[in-house]
């Protein structure tokens, strides 16, 4: 299938939100700032994703899955911007808008997994689940979680370190706490004790919250 242009994706997204979430029948071209001869629009009409009647636009059944995934990508991008990259507010929104168009060919799945299959966007709206979310639920694994969420005895792979203090992060990396290494949580209280290779380390909950573990099941 041809990849949609970013503009076409924006239109689909708005339409989906209007139709599915706001229960509107469709929307006006002027609502979307579109002219009647818009190229992106023509693209969608040609694919039979949308139907244009006069100045009214509606989402067709054929366009729904694609539209849903577009919304999903946008909201995943928002989560990524705000939770992981810590870009907040308007700026986060803008970045997410540009970023979502890159999340194709499995990248969305990877990011969804990295974010541990979130169900809502930072604004509280639902993120339409992808197949990866269903699979994760079926497997019952923990996905990617901070070390604090593991039970004693559980193990996984270090996914990433979100440590704000560069020196602490460097120290941990020098000790072998590196993305891709196997980690086993030995103990949770009073401090977190974990094993990497044949070494054991103790960290407090502040640091444990910043070490993220990927489930390997």
């Amino acid at each position, binding site marked *: 299938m041809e990849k949609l242009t970013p503009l076409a994706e924006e239109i689909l997204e708005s339409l989906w939100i209007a139709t599915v979430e706001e229960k509107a029948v469709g929307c006006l071209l002027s609502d979307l700032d579109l002219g009647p001869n818009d190229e992106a629009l023509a693209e969608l009409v040609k694919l039979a994703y949308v139907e244009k009647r006069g100045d009214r636009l509606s989402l067709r059944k054929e366009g729904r899955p694609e539209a849903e995934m577009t919304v999903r990508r946008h909201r995943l991008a928002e989560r990524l911007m705000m939770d992981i990259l810590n870009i907040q507010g308007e700026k986060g929104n803008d970045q997410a808008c540009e970023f979502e168009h890159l999340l194709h060919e499995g990248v969305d799945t990877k990011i969804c997994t990295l974010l541990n299959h979130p169900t809502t966007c930072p604004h509280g709206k639902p993120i339409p689940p992808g197949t990866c979310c269903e699979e994760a639920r079926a497997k019952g694994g923990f996905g990617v979680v901070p070390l604090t969420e593991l039970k004693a005895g559980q193990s996984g792979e270090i996914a990433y370190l979100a440590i704000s203090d560069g020196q602490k992060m460097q120290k941990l990396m020098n000790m*072998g706490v*590196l993305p891709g290494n196997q980690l086993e949580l030995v103990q949770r209280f*009073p401090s977190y004790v974990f094993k990497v290779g044949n070494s054991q380390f*103790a960290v407090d909950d502040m640091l444990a919250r910043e070490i993220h573990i990927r489930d390997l099941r």
Partner: protein
Amino acid sequence: MREEVTQPKIVLVGNPNVGKSVLFNVLTGSYTTVSNYPGTSVEVSSGRCRIDGRSYEVLDTPGMYSLMPITEEERVARKILLEDRPEILLHVVDARNIERMLPMTLQLIEAGQPLILVVNILDEAERLGMKFDLPQLQQNLGIPVVGTVMKRRQGLAELQHVISNYQGPPPPAVPYAADLETDIVRLAGFLTADYPLGPRATAILMMQRDREVEEMVQLEEGEGFPLIAPVLHSIKFSRRADLNLQISLERKRHTRKMLDGALQQEIADHPPFSERLSRLAMNPITGVPLLLLVLYFGLYQFVGNFGAGTLVDFLEGTLFEEYINPAAISFLNGLTDIYWLRELLAGEYGLWTLGVRYAIALILPIVGTFFLVFSILEDTGYFPRLAMLVDRVFKQIGLSGRAVIPMVLGFGCDTMATMVTRTLETRRERVIATVLLALAIPCSAQLGVILGLLSAVPGSLLVWLLVMIGIFLLIGFLSAQVLPGENPVFYMEIPPMRLPQLRNVLVKTLTRMQSYFLEILPLFLVASVILWAGKMSGLLDIVVDGMTPVVTALGLPPQASAAFIFGFFRRDFGAAGLYDLQTAGLLSPTQLTVAAVTLTLFVPCIAQLLMMKKERGLKTALSIFFFVSLLAFATGWVLNKFLLTTGLLS
């Protein structure tokens, strides 16, 4: 062979706890402290050895995790690499953790160092099911690799052979991922001077924002530096987000490649005993009782009862009182007829009576037994486990679990402990730890006398203990609120538990006792002279009299003020002064408890004050001094009123 003015140097580097110091001792035959606690060996030890007819100077460096220093110890270690230009560099690694230690080997190869890799602790690694093919590793790395079990001298002959036959610099470093490599090569191309770490490693360290290295390059390149600066800046900027992570991951990838075919891991069977013991020590349900057991047997029974009781009774009561003192005093008195000189030598506060006798008969056995317990615990690897156990509580008083080491050491000698606070990471932590040491941690000498005193009166020991714990937590909590700065983050490697080796423990205890003794005996003598001079001139009486209203305000007999004055010269003098009052029957249970509490809290001894000034600066030291004195008497006053009102101890 050409005669060299300076001997060729062999430098040992590696993580903490890999057996560097043991290797150092085996190579040189002399002794340095071998420690199980990460980062204890702040000092650098040096020694000499002869291999195959050639003599070398051997340097043991503090533990380092990477060429990019974070802690003070690592800075010291790297300084040695930068300044000493070793002829041979031995990178010692723990075979069990070779995978996380090899990245530093790669870094050292990258730095063009004359490197030999020593894979130590092979025996324990093999017990864990690891199978090494060291010749293969040698081939992969392109540098000599020697497998050893240094504590049994296994592999020593081979290592010496490799050292004396060492040839030439290591092979060129394996390139990183293309984009990273381009930047490195570009930056390294600008470097023209002769750098101890070579252009490549120097360039990488600059990219990693290592200020020290950048300053060195700035100095070396001089007028050429303005050409480098913009390139460096743009590389640093474009890689600001994840350079360190990328480099770490690249090195990890290389490490895997190097270990390919050289290491096989078989699944080890059930966890060994040491591992089970380790879990017991770390689990709060078993760990806290274990801690209490350690405190009860180690501190109370061994140091308190045996050291401060049996040993002191024997040395002081039997040996000195019955045999040495009469002879010594009559000998000293026979030397002269001059009254003031007699007083100075063998009078009430004389050099012999107060100085030597107290130091040897009273203090040494107590401190000695404490250091023995401390060394045993240190060598088992118990302290890091204790640190993780108390971290949560310590956070409430603005410290991290790391501070448990100086705190425990404080029960031995607060002066030494104050010195050790420098291993804490932030100034805030160091100040809080210093205050608490000065205030609420009694040193072993004081502790021994106080435990002996208070055990005579039921209940008073409990009151004393509760007040001490209360003050410790309260003042810690308040200082954490008052002092600016963030709470520290706690992370610590937990080394495996091991059985302490007798020789190691003994030598360590003796070294500590020796340095303590060398430190205190002069101070005892000085204190004696000051007290003697005070007595002779009448000044002491004035000071003691000046102190009397304060002391009587606490409900204590006037004689007790002498104990407080002495307390400053040596905390234990004060406690011992109390002991005299107690034996003379001058103290009621309430008075005894109030006096013991006040004296424990009261100003640190003169040695600790000097150490505080050295470590924290004059202003901070004096502030702590006045704060602690004020708080001690205030607490004593409140406690006295409280005990009298409630009639708790009468």
